[in-house]
C-alpha cells in the first residue's frame, strides 16, 4: 500500500516531465526559424533576430518598444505595425481592431504574428528612441488641490531624446488591491533641453490606479519605471498661427512646448494663442508664468477662462466653457483669416468638443494635433 502511494505520483510526474521535455524539444526544432532579418522603415534599420517569437516581443528584445497597454494579449489593439512583406492572413484575434484601411495596407497587431522569416515593417520613427528607465522621484509639487507635478531624475549619464509635446508611460508597482504593475500615459511637461530629467502633471482621478498611487503613495526618492517617449503631438515647423487649447493637467505638454519655444526663440517668430480652461481660481496654476510670457512676447497670447468662477475669486478674465471662449476668439479679427494649426490636450470629451468648434471655423482636421490616451 505504501509503495503504491509512492509509485502513483512518481509515475505521473515522471510521465509529465517526459512529455514536457518532448514538447520543448519539438518547440526547439519546429519553432526554430533561425536568424531572421527585420527591415524597419524600408531598410533604415536592419535587425538580425532569432525568429519564432511574436513581433512585439522580438522588437522589445531589440529595445524597440511598440506601444502596448495589454502586454501582448491582443486585447488593447495598440501595437499595430504596417508590414511591407507578407506575414500571412489576419487572424481572428486581431480582426476586432482592424479598420478597412488597416486590412488594405497589411497592418497587423505585432503581438499576434510570429517572426518566421525575413520581414519588412514600418513604424513611426520616434519608436527607435523609446527606452525604459528606472527614474528616481526628485520632487513632488502640489500645483492645485488635485494636480501634482512630479519631477523625475533619470539614471546618471542617460539623456532622453524627445520632442516637446510627446508623452511617456509611467508604470507603478502593485499596491493594495492592485495585483499587477500598471502603466498609464502622461504628457511630458519637462523640456528636451533638460535631458536627464522628465516631469509630469498628474491629476487625481477618483478610482484611477496610477493617479491614486502617485497622489497617495509616491514619495520623493522612490524609483518608478518610465518609458519614454511616445506620440505624434509636437509643434509642426510652419509659420501658421498656433491655436492651443488645454484644460487641467492638459497644461503639461504646453509647459514643455512654450519653455522650449522660449529657449530656441521661436516664440517670437509665430503667433501663439493659448486657451486654458479651468473651473475656478483654485484650479488655475502657472498663471503668473504664462501672463509674464504674454507681456514679454508680443506674439504670445494667454487666455485663461473659468467655467464656474466663485464670487470670492474676483475673476476679471473670460468666463464660460473653453469651447465658448474658443468659438468667440476664432471669429475675432486676430484669428479669423489667419492660417491656423490646432494643438489640443485634455480629456477626450474636451478634445471632441474643441474639434467640433475648430471644424465649424474651417480649420482642417489634418492640421489639428492631439494624442488621445486618457
Amino acid at each position, binding site marked *: 500500500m505504501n509503495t503504491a502511494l509512492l509509485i502513483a505520483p512518481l509515475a505521473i510526474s515522471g*510521465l509529465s516531465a517526459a512529455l514536457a521535455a*518532448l514538447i520543448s524539444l519539438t518547440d526547439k526544432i*519546429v519553432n526554430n526559424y533561425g536568424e531572421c532579418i527585420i527591415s524597419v522603415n524600408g531598410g533604415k534599420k536592419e535587425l538580425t533576430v532569432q525568429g519564432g517569437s511574436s513581433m512585439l516581443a522580438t522588437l522589445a528584445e531589440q529595445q524597440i518598444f511598440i506601444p502596448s497597454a495589454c502586454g501582448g494579449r491582443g486585447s488593447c489593439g495598440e501595437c499595430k505595425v504596417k508590414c511591407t512583406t507578407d506575414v*500571412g492572413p489576419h487572424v481572428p484575434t486581431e480582426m476586432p481592431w482592424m479598420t478597412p484601411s488597416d486590412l488594405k495596407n497589411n497592418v497587423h497587431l505585432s503581438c499576434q504574428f510570429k517572426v518566421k522569416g525575413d520581414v519588412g515593417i514600418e513604424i513611426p520613427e520616434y519608436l527607435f528612441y523609446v527606452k525604459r528607465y528606472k527614474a528616481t522621484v526628485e520632487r513632488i509639487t502640489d500645483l492645485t488641490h488635485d494636480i501634482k507635478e512630479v519631477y523625475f531624475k533619470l539614471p546618471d549619464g542617460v539623456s532622453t531624446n524627445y520632442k516637446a509635446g510627446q508623452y511617456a508611460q509611467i508604470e507603478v508597482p502593485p499596491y493594495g488591491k492592485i495585483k499587477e504593475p500598471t502603466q498609464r500615459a502622461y504628457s511630458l511637461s519637462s523640456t528636451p533641453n533638460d535631458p536627464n530629467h522628465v516631469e509630469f502633471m498628474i491629476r487625481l482621478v477618483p478610482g484611477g490606479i496610477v493617479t491614486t498611487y502617485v497622489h497617495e503613495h509616491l514619495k520623493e526618492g522612490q524609483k518608478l519605471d518610465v518609458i519614454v517617449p511616445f506620440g505624434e503631438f509636437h509643434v509642426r515647423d510652419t509659420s501658421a498661427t498656433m491655436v492651443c487649447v488645454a484644460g487641467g493637467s492638459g497644461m503639461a505638454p504646453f509647459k514643455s512646448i512654450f519653455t522650449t519655444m522660449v529657449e530656441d526663440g521661436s516664440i517670437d517668430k509665430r503667433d501663439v494663442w493659448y486657451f486654458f480652461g479651468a473651473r475656478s481660481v483654485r484650479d488655475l496654476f502657472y498663471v503668473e508664468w504664462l501672463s509674464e510670457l504674454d507681456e514679454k512676447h508680443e506674439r504670445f497670447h494667454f487666455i485663461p477662462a473659468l467655467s464656474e468662477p466663485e464670487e470670492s475669486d474676483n475673476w476679471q478674465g473670460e468666463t464660460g466653457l473653453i469651447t465658448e471662449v474658443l468659438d468667440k476668439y476664432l471669429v475675432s479679427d486676430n484669428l479669423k483669416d489667419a492660417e491656423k494649426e490646432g494643438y489640443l490636450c485634455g480629456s477626450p470629451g474636451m478634445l471632441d468638443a474643441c474639434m467640433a468648434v475648430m471644424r465649424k471655423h474651417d480649420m482642417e482636421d489634418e492640421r489639428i494635433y492631439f494624442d488621445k490616451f486618457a
Partner: protein
Amino acid sequence: MNAPDIGLFSLFFASIFTSNILLANFLGMCSFIAISKDLKSSNGLGLAVTVVLTVTGAANWLILHYILIPYDLIYLRFIIFILVIAAMVQILEMVIDRVSQKLYITLGIFLPLITVNCAILGVSLFIEIREYNFVQTVIYSLGSGLGWWLAIVALAAIRNKTEKTKTVPAGLQGSGLTMITIGLMALAFIGFSGMLSVQ
C-alpha cells in the same frame, strides 16, 4: 495477452464503417456539430483528429503495457491518457503552425479543443478494454480516425446542401436539422453492423 481474434483488414474496415466511433459510439460530438458547418475546416479537423488519434493510440498502448500494467497502476489510466493526448495536441499545433499557416488559422481554437475530444480518450480506453495488441491498436486508431474524418466530411457536405434549400422550417434550421441528419447517418452506418462488428 489475449488479443481478440480478428483479422486486421476486418478491424480496419469495421472501425471506419460499421463501428464508426462517431455514429456508432457517438463520441466526439461537440466538434462534429460545431465544425461541420464548413467543408474545408471539417476536412482539416478530420485530418488533425486522425493524426492525433493514431499517435495517441499507439503512445497510450505503450504506456499501458510497459508502465501501467507492470506497476499495477491501471487506475491511473484516465489521467495519464489525458496527459498524453494534451501533449500530442500541443506538438501537433506547433507542427501545423509551421507547416501550414492556412490550416492553422482555419482550425483556430478547435485544434486545442481536440484535447477534450472524447473520441480520442474513448479510443484509448477501448484499446485497453478490448485488449488489442500493438498492431491492432494502430490499425484500430487509424481506422477510427478515418471513420471520424469520413463522418464529419459527409455531414458537412450534407449540411452544405440543406443550408442552400429554403424549404427547412425555421424551427429546425441549424442544429435541429443537424441532429436529425446525424441520426439518419447513424442508422445508415449501423445498418452494416450485422456484417461485421468490433463492439
